[in-house]
């Protein structure tokens, strides 16, 4: 326990700051508390004074009696009290507590009373760099009684002089059947001319909402407002009156969002996005004209801002954005010298992998020694990495474009609202473009992250002189065959115990399946060395250290750390087997990585595991029943509440699974029932096909499960269901090993 506590504490210490040891309130805190209480009194008077009709409601409609909680009313206000860029965001909700789960959810609130908005400044409550939160709650009892509590009564659970003060509020006298009405008020300043608030109002949440209203009000002399309504959400009612830009929305009876599986909220659920931003006299990129309300602005304007951002990023090349440039050039020059006829495509790959190596694989003497699985999660900033690659491509006369993609689970190109809605890839120009992204330490060329597939994206020339957009590209979808998991299993029966399976399993994964397995199973020592050699870098850091008087002991230490990591990786393999079969093996007798899949030309990770499994063979008299269906591992099960579906289906990517299971029939036994295993479900959305072959004392079962597309309209749901159900049902299938 103490160990866990120690780890926990240390993690805590790494992210929290200095605080006084004494418990008594420090002077700065005590002084601020006086002001806080005074302001809280004003805030609660203001917010409880709101007149929205929904807050007078005390009745839960019969149709929602079975809901855990029902939001009778909620209202958000975004206001600017004066012209000095102060911003107040207030939220008030009235919620009926219908069960214990809701009671637990609404009975405690944690909030940051003060939070500094800049890491450069220490916490100073009520200055322009600090956000202050006030909150209050009142309970309406069934018998008409009420009870109130406010944030100044909450216990303090964290004080970090550098960044924040956190409090926790326990709601008194809250019981099932009560209504809780609470508010949260944030007060802060907008400190940058280009800053804006990011608000999303989602009309479809877990709880039904009977009345949902929003009011935004900002000084027309100072601010600009913009909003976008999406997926059928209404537009705001807008007006400019009394020097204020105003937006209002009132929506009644928002039902709970019914489906949670394979949804894409940004493209399916009605919502409104709002920016309140500091205006400027003349509209320009990144700035909006003061006193103006932009209703559903043209997405091209946002795109142009994103393009300008990319251009600026692309051109920001300096020694700080291009570290280790000399070494990169040395290696590129050597590579070109050693490969006189190198093609642009080959050089592109080389540059990409070289920068990946320099940024993530290489070790410096002063680095902390991290060579276990933690290292496999390392990554580089998307922008910084791709800028570097682009820079080297340009300098080597290879044409490339930046691809401004909008991820599938964000807004579509025609509904972007801010430059951050875009992400970036790099793509070479030509008939066979090489796509490049920054997906971490195992990121490779010729790979398009699943979230970008199928998106139409503008292109920005990688060359330094071109500033506008160059055109668009339709990012291709990957085929199910590219995202593939294959399990080849040779199964024999233990001679002394027919109920024990000996499994020799070779597995591979490609496409979007690859990276998680690489992160789980690969050892830094192995991939470091493989990449170093592939890049033609002669000396390893271990050799460098061994040659250096100063760092000689480091080589020894790394050797020890490598050995420990290699020993510990067995746990990862054990875990991988358990995940695949949903049961721990009796013993893991062998494990080995066959292919690391580090590059585009090795598109899969492959590995072998040898283990024994119990629990798959049932004895019946002198015969044995084999749970053959369970050998493909746990299959997806669609719950009753998910079986009726009206929403379109958004899956991460098209994918395929293949299981080739070969049973060695033990001597003295015959195998029956293999014919019953066969399945053939094949439709537009997917397929589940099982074939069997019996020959020479062996039964071979081939199972293929394919999700053909990443998207399907709701109307096709029955077809997808047919395939998923078939795979699930297959798990029950058995064959008989009969005593001859």
């Amino acid at each position, binding site marked *: 326990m103490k160990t866990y506590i120690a780890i926990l504490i240390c993690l805590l210490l790494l992210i929290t700051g200095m605080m006084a040891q004494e418990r008594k309130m420090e002077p700065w805190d005590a002084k601020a508390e006086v002001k806080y209480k005074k302001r809280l009194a004003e805030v609660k008077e203001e917010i409880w004074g709101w007149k929205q009709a929904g807050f007078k409601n005390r009745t839960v409609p019969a149709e929602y009696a079975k809901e855990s909680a029902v939001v009778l009313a909620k209202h958000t206000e975004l206001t600017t009290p004066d012209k000095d860029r102060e911003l107040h965001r207030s939220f008030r909700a009235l919620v009926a507590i219908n069960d214990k789960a809701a009671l637990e959810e609404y009975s405690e609130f944690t909030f940051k009373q003060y939070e500094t908005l800049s890491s450069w400044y220490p916490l100073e409550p009520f200055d322009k760099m600090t956000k202050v939160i006030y909150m209050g709650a009142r309970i309406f009892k069934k018998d008409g009684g009420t009870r109130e509590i406010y944030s100044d009564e909450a216990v303090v659970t964290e004080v970090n002089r550098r960044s924040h003060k956190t409090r926790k509020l326990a709601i008194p006298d809250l019981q099932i059947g009560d209504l809780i009405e609470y508010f949260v008020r944030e007060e802060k300043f907008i400190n940058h001319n280009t800053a804006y608030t990011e608000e999303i109002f989602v009309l479809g949440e877990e*709880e039904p909402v009977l009345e949902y209203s929003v009011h935004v009000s900002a000084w027309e002399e100072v601010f600009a407002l913009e909003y976008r309504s999406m997926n059928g959400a209404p537009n705001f009612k807008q007006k400019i009156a009394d020097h204020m830009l105003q937006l209002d929305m009132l929506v009644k009876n928002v039902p709970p969002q019914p489906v949670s599986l394979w949804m894409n909220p940004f493209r399916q659920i009605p919502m409104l996005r709002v920016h309140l931003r500091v205006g400027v006299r003349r509209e320009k990129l990144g700035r909006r004209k003061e006193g103006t309300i932009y209703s559903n602005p043209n997405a091209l304007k946002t795109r142009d801002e994103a393009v300008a951002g990319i251009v600026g990023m692309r051109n920001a090349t300096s020694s700080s954005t291009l570290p280790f440039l000399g070494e990169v050039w040395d290696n590129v020059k050597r590579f070109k010298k050693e490969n006189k006829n190198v093609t642009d495509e080959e050089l592109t790959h080389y540059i990409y992998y070289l920068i990946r190596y320099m940024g993530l694989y290489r070790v410096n003497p002063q680095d902390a020694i991290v060579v276990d699985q933690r290292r496999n999660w390392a990554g580089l900033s998307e922008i910084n990495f791709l800028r570097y690659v682009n820079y080297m491509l340009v300098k080597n006369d290879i044409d490339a474009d930046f691809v401004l993609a909008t991820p599938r689970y964000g807004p579509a190109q025609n509904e972007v609202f801010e430059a951050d809605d875009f992400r970036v890839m790099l793509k070479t120009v030509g008939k066979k473009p090489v796509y490049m992204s920054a997906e971490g330490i195992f990121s490779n060329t010729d790979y398009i992250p699943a979230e970008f597939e199928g998106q139409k994206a503008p292109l920005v020339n990688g060359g330094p002189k071109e500033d506008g957009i160059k055109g668009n590209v339709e990012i291709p979808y990957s085929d199910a065959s590219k995202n593939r998991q294959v399990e080849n299993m040779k199964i024999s029966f233990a001679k002394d115990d027919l109920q024990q399976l000996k499994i020799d399993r070779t597995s591979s994964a490609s496409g979007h399946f690859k990276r998680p397995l690489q992160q789980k199973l690969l050892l830094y020592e192995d991939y470091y060395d493989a990449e170093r050699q592939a890049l033609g870098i002669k000396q390893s850091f271990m050799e460098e250290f061994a040659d250096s008087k100063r760092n000689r002991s480091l080589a020894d230490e790394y050797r020890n750390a490598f050995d420990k990591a290699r020993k510990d990786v067995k746990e990862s393999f054990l875990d991988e087997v358990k995940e695949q079969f949903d049961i721990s093996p009796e013993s893991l007798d062998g494990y080995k990585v066959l292919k690391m899949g580090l590059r585009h030309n090795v598109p899969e990770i492959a590995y072998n595991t040898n283990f024994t499994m119990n629990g798959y063979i049932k004895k019946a008299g002198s015969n044995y029943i084999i749970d053959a269906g369970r050998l493909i591992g746990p299959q997806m099960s669609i719950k009753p509440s998910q079986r009726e579906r009206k929403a379109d289906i958004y899956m991460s990517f098209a994918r395929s699974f293949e299981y080739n299971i070969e049973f060695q029939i033990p001597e003295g036994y015959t195998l029956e029932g293999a014919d019953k295993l066969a399945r053939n479900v094949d439709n537009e959305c997917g397929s589940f096909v099982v074939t069997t072959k019996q020959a020479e004392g062996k039964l071979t079962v081939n199972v293929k499960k394919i999700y053909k597309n990443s998207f399907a309209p709701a109307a096709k749901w029955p077809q997808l269901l047919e395939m998923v159900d078939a795979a699930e049902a297959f798990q029950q299938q058995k064959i008989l090993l009969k005593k001859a």
Partner: protein
Amino acid sequence: MLCTRNRLCINLILCGLSLPALAAGGNYWPEVAENKRVVSAFEENKNIVIRERKERYEFVKGDEKNPVWVKQSFTTFYRCDEYRGSVPVVEFYDDYSRVDEVKAYVNGDRMKVKVEHDYYSVEGLFYSDARVCGFMLPLEKKGTESRVEMQKTVLDPRYFTSIFFQEEFFQEQKEVTLVVPRWMKIEIREMNFAKAGVKTSKTYDEKTNADIYTYSAKGIKASKSEPHAPGPSYLYPHLLVMTHAAETPSGKITYFSNVNDLYAWYRSLVKEIGNDPATVKATALNITKDKKEDIDKIKAVYTWVQENIRYIAFEDGIAGFRPAKAQDVLEKKYGDCKGMANLTKEMLAALGLDARLCWIGTRHIAYDYSTPTLSVDNHMICAVNLKGKQYFLDATETYIGFDQYAERIQGRQVLIENGDQFTLSKVPLRTFEQNRQVEKRTLEIDGNNLTGKVDHQYTGECTEYILTQAHQIKKDKLEEALEQFLSKENRSYAISSVKTSDLHDWSKDMTIHYDLQHKDAVNNFGDELYVELDFRKEMEDAGIDTTLREHDLWLSFKRQLVQETALTIPAGYKVKSLPPAVNIDQPKYAFKAAYEQQADKIVYRKEITIKDTHLEKKDFPTWNNDIKKLRQTYLEQITLTKK
């Protein structure tokens, strides 16, 4: 709830809603799931060891408010044996202690230490006065040492209760020194020293007129955290320090020389509570207005507190020992164990019943009140005397019935208030019969399916587990979650027409009834039908990995699971073979399963009984062997053949 913008929001929907534990599993054997391989970051850490740790504790004169302090100094030498790294150095303090100074040396050179202080938050604890300070200590390279020197003061010797020898790293050498001036009266009890190899000595220092106790040991293994292990006071060698009294210039201060003193101190705190009986009485009368018998009134009050008072744990200085006012807990509808016990007691007292507060150490603690220290207890409950019988009420166990007791308090000694006196008693022990789950199925073969009706009945802690899980689920999702739980998320085990007893009434046995269609549970090969009757296979995974497990394993509670299935043999078929019976009856548990043909039926009856929750390491081989036998019965099927 975290007050963040757009609380609900996108992530929840994106990630899919995950239901709590009820939906995830079919059976309650948590220790089974958690007993799997647990490899912590520091487990078997051969890289960094403590070459030497010296601890010195000295009783000194304090100030007017706290006349006696305990000055503590710790010097720790860490050594790196394999590769460079850093170690977390942490120390806890609270209202009654402070960390005075921290110095660190890396490879002999003084390091500038920037000690970070923070509130210590623990999951499940709403608020604690505990604070933690610490920093990361680098170990420069293999073969080097880093050293930490820390000074700490405990401001009241009442709170200085124990010295443990274990650390989170292997210690090659350890020395603990206690300097006890003769004006300070303490008792030191050596705990778990039997195999610890601790050498002890006692000398007298004339100059300071102090006794000096020295304890040294070599090769102390690192502490290891394992799920379902006994508490540290059972596992590790330690010194239990009982501070009896101090002779100070202003007179004698009595601390805890015996349980009378301990009770007197507790009593003094209870006297300060400030309960308002009138407020509490009105509610108590309302709750019991329909009850005539005292026993029914007690049950009604207990159930009301269980259902209406939320448990929120507070540890805040002296308030960590003094219950909150009953009227405050009643008004706020939340409280910690002391607050809930005090409210229960006050309500019952208001009804004229003989109710008392009780201090108790749960089974996590190895001591009883023969060792009067503040380490002896960690919980408070209520006792009520009625017609010569004593009942204990622990309302923090939300869904346990009256006169049923959770494993954690069963058999534990309780200190019961009795005016200025006290009584010592014990919470009754309960057998597995308190906690039963019975499943009865009547099934027929219909093609490849088994169909029929199923009844479940739960009692005691089995009920508590189910209801705790059920009430965490939002009620619009409860029905589906319950089905998922009962079917182990297997759609082939299709459940319909589920009826449950009142989930808000745990004074009666909890029952569940439903119709079942277990698809493809029957396999037809030639003239023969193969049937698997055991769907749940409880504890098949309960083997203990003896290569990893270091400590005894304490199962959550005693219980009995009974499953009975009556299968009608289809017309035209007869039994060809039935699986052999298993009949294991050990002192601590029993696993029994048998198939029997009774006329046109096959009756399968299984009983899994945990009679004693404490599995000692010496029990593991037999336990594993018996689990293997149980598992083997799960791997047997019935064969029916055509007549």
